[in-house]
């Protein structure tokens, strides 16, 4: 099939093959000898790996929680406000709210690094006198908030797309029946956006494992202070390439990637079977 060939070939060679080959490599050592589960034993049994792994995974879930609790509800709220009828200038707000999402993570990371830097002292003016990015207690929540600030446009635009597709007659009909704003939201809007809520949650979950860029930009691959901002992405990078004195190992890198693959797969399956099957999607 001429039409299918280019897409299938490029996808297979540069995505599917590397993913499968990575899985295979996790069962071999760096010299290419079959090693069985040795790499996995090292990852979970050797404290220098295992401690970092569990730390990073825990941080990943905290990072995810911040996005679920803040980014997605704020995105929904903004989308609802942006679809209120008879308010002028909504397009301008929509453009502004989405703006940070178009900036590169490098820029966003640096903007906030400068703003939160105690040297500049901008944060002192608003009453914050701890170096938010410098203390292990505050660094991860701060980075999560920066990420929320940047990416809130995505759930906003996704919810927005669903909301503007809801026929106006449907809402007017229930208004005529005497339903208030809250009732309309609960009985009509909410069931209609529920499937999108699932899609956004799973996208947030997957995106979370790609959050390397921000941490690398703001804290470097060692994800300081004292690994307090280390997530799976930075851990994977360090394991593969090595950092500050330690040498990297492709085999161990592939092993970390394979474990991440399983964690993501678990989330996707949970979504497909635990959520998608139970939530009704209404055709409008």
């Amino acid at each position: 099939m001429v039409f299918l060939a280019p897409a299938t070939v490029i996808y297979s060679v540069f995505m599917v093959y590397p993913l499968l080959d990575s899985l295979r490599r996790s069962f071999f050592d760096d010299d290419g000898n079959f090693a069985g589960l040795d790499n996995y034993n090292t990852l979970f049994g050797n404290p220098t790996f295992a401690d970092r792994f569990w730390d990073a995974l825990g941080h990943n879930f905290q990072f995810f929680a911040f996005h679920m609790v803040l980014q997605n509800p704020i995105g929904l709220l903004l989308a609802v406000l942006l679809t209120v009828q008879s308010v002028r200038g909504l397009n301008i707000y929509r453009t502004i709210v989405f703006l940070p999402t178009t900036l590169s993570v490098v820029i966003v990371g640096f903007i906030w690094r400068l703003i939160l830097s105690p040297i500049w002292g901008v944060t002192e003016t608003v009453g914050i006198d701890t170096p938010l990015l410098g203390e292990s207690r505050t660094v991860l929540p701060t980075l999560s908030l920066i990420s929320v600030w940047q990416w809130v446009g995505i759930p906003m635009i996704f919810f927005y797309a669903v909301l503007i597709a809801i026929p106006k007659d449907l809402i007017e009909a229930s208004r005529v029946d005497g339903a208030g704003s809250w009732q309309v939201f609960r009985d009509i809007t909410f069931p209609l956006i529920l499937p999108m809520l699932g899609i956004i949650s799973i996208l947030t979950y997957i995106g979370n494992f790609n959050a390397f860029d921000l941490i690398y930009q703001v804290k470097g691959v060692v994800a300081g202070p004292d690994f307090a901002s280390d997530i799976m992405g930075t851990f994977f990078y360090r394991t593969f390439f090595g950092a500050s004195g330690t040498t990297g190992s492709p085999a161990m890198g592939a092993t970390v990637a394979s474990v991440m693959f399983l964690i993501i797969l678990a989330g996707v399956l949970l979504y497909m079977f635990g959520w998608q099957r139970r939530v009704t999607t209404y055709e409008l």
Partner: protein
Amino acid sequence: MDTATSAPAPPDRISPTKRRIHLGRWGVHAVLLAYSLLALGPTLLIIMNSLKSRSAIFDDAFSLPTSETFDLVGYDTVLNGSSFDVYFRNSFIVTVASVLLVVFFSAMAAFALAEYDFKGNTMLALYLAIGIMIPIRLGTVSILKLMVSLGLINTLWALILVYTAMGLPLGVFLMTQFMRQVPRELKSAARVDGANEYRVFGLVLPLVRPGMAAVAVFTMLPVWNDLWFPLILAPAEDTRTVTLGASAFLGQFERNWNALLAALTLAMVPIILLYVIFSRQFLRGLTEGAIK
């Protein structure tokens, strides 16, 4: 106006529901305005201070540059000490090439998937869709080995191929949804007139323009903003993308605040301008893709 309590009820008094909506409108404005400030503030703070002298940056970060504090020293440093033009060119080539390849190849594959009933159609669609759920970064170890053996390290081709593979799953999925909406009669009519399949494809393409726009928008942002693959596959000075270039460049000026702020502004402003100019089309593309 506080007429509710003080003034005697005029005959044409606004009904209570109407007033609630009216108050609600200001509430909507207040919340959106507050959030807009939060979204824009940090960016404006950087741009504003990039135009000020060093002492003014630190003395009063929140004031606008005045004739006394206006200073372009940061821009001098940046423009004389970097190859941002090369980085921009690289990013532009990589992004445009990847987006074009993704859009065109997805359209072709989607046309076949939506049009022909062949054995394994569903399986192939599913195979292509798996990639939506799995980050391509997990295959980095093997991608690096593959690129080394193909001799593509430190070439823009390495990035273009990886980004095309990365964008295709979602692209094919979205395009298939759009292709299905093209009326069947149109295609059969063309076939009756003796058009071959390539001709039919050519006829269908203009009809799925919104789909192609959506795919382009969805592919563009992650490619332009990616730091991971440029860092690993093309870190050489002359193949750096803006994202990687800015990252390395900003690192050099750790102590020079004028240069930092100027470099950030230079890296931001073109994107912001492009975005503001095309925001209507851009957001429409996202919106149309999102509900598929």
